[in-house]
């Protein structure tokens, strides 16, 4: 089974801080990582390959610095990686991004495409469905388990709010891996050394893909960010106490809540 995994190299939003004095976002010095959700997609792809044979190719559309992410993916055991990068692709929304990725993926041999459920920076969860649409293949989100059944078919288990569902899928297909899977494997030095070999990490630009400029980047994006702002704080009473006597403080608090009408006793 030949698998393509889409990954995104994202600022590690768990380490972002707000400058308390100015109230602005401290972006500089925020390290990038492979989107944590994509790590689960990578793990699922590698586990499927290890069990059923085939290959895994990691792909990303990003500025050149995302090469580091692909090196990490190769280090985890991906056979190949593709960096899709061109100034023409800048400013793309999810429609234009999925278009470009779909065109790039079409150049690869694949039976299965895996994506992470969403990204931790923009969290839209759009790309999987949009790729499936461009490529005219079936897809499912929230996948927690998958097996190759042979004969171009897969068994897939996914989790919704209140139910597990099992499906049979005919390949080629796309799956979005859920977050709560097994732990993604670590990078192995012997694998990572392969990044230096020729052809392991390929770089494709718009000369390679030859896409119409109206379909990519900002021009191919129906949405634009008109402005950004900060999260407005919800007005709250902010009555905060350091109790001297815990029992009395508790009695005071419960009584206040009853008086305010939030608690009925």
């Amino acid at each position, binding site marked *: 089974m030949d698998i393509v995994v889409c990954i995104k190299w994202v*600022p590690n*939003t768990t380490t*972002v801080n*707000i400058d308390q004095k100015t109230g602005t*976002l401290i972006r500089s010095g925020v390290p990038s990582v492979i989107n944590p959700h994509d790590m689960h997609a990578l793990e699922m792809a590698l586990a499927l390959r290890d069990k059923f044979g085939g290959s895994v190719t990691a792909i990303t559309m990003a500025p050149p610095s995302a090469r580091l992410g692909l090196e990490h993916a190769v280090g985890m055991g991906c056979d190949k990686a593709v960096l899709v990068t061109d100034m023409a692709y800048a400013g793309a929304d*999810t*429609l234009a991004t*999925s*278009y470009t990725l779909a065109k790039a993926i079409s150049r690869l041999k694949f039976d299965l495409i895996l994506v992470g459920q969403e990204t*931790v920076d*923009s*969290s839209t*969860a759009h*790309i*999987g*469905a*949009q790729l*499936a*649409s461009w490529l005219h*293949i*079936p*897809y499912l989100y929230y996948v927690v388990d998958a097996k190759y059944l042979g004969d171009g078919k897969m*068994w897939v288990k996914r989790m919704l*709010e*209140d139910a*597990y569902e099992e*499906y049979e899928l*005919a390949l080629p*297909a796309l799956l979005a891996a859920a977050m709560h899977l097994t732990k993604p494997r670590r990078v192995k030095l012997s694998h990572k050394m392969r990044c230096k070999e020729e052809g392991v990490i390929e770089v494709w630009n718009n000369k390679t893909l030859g896409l119409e400029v*109206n379909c990519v980047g900002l*021009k191919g994006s*129906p*949405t*634009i*960010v*008109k*402005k*950004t*702002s900060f*999260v407005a704080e*919800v007005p*709250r*009473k*902010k*009555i*905060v*106490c*350091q*109790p001297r006597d*815990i029992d*009395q403080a*508790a009695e005071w*608090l*419960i*009584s206040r*809540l*009853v008086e*305010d009408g*939030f608690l009925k*006793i």
Partner: protein
Amino acid sequence: MSICSEWDRINPEEYVGVWAYLEVEDGSLSEAGLQMLGVARLLASQKDTYVGAVLIGRGVSSLAREAIYYGADRVYVADDERFEKYYPTLYGEALAYLAKEYKPEALLVAGTMRGREFTPYVANILKTGITADCTSFEVDSAAKDILGVRPTFGAYLIAHIRTLNRRPAIFTARPNVFPTPQKDLAREGEIIPTNPKVVDAVGVKLLGRSRFGRGAAPIEKAKILVSGGKGLGGKEGFTILEEFAKVIGGEVSGSRKAVDAGWITHDRQVGQTGKAVRADLYFAVGISGAVQHLFGIREVRCVVAINKDPDAPIFDNCDYGLVGDYTEIVPALIKAVKKIKASPQLITNFVNLNINVVNLIKGN
């Protein structure tokens, strides 16, 4: 303007009306879908246009009237055995077909797990813009465009997003971020049977479904929530919270770190990637108050924080806060509730204790 040759040409002027897709859950309209209908109503009145509702499924015609009571002017019904089972590509095709046919200017879909799965497919068929997880909307005064406002960059920033020249503009919003509208039996509207032409779902077959009982009541319905975080230090911490929740008639929920640690299930996670809750009263116990968590409690009427760190951000985002170790405070709260239950007249004394027993570090 030159557009991508893979997009149909459209005339945005022809697109009018604000639509909400109504998800059907166990034979009735889902609350999340009705919330979208409520938003559609507000936007439509600002734009002076009609509200459309879409129903797709088998046997869903009987729900059309219900949709009108909740705010729809026109209900587009695709009731067909082909739609007996939900598949993202199938429902995506059907909704895209209706949007092409009837040309609404905006389409709202609840960001349930299915909604998040099939709506981007709809947007892609129509080659239009989609804005996920909106927390509010704006109608631009000049262009009259509807903008979706959503958290981004890990919820540290808010982006105001506009869909240019493509219609319908598509938006999703998480369940419970918006209120459920009131039912009005006097409302009237039009029911429009439709017959979307779709390609059957090829290559995907549902083999089976197994529900996992939610056990406790869902947190989004609870009036009182006792929520635990990493600060509980272990699964046992939730035992005390459950006891407290029981004496005050509440439910238990948690932060993402509590979920990741396996102390509580994901369906009880509060926050941007969990659930938004609309409780009257919310206890945040051992929860630091990260922005993503705060996103889930914006609509809570009263937030009480219990945390041993006086500098925890939750104390800037609560109504009442007690600084201290939860293993001492929560049992004291349980005791206090029992004491007051036994003699409710004590309340007057206790309320007035105020400054005498506590060392006020913030507020007044």
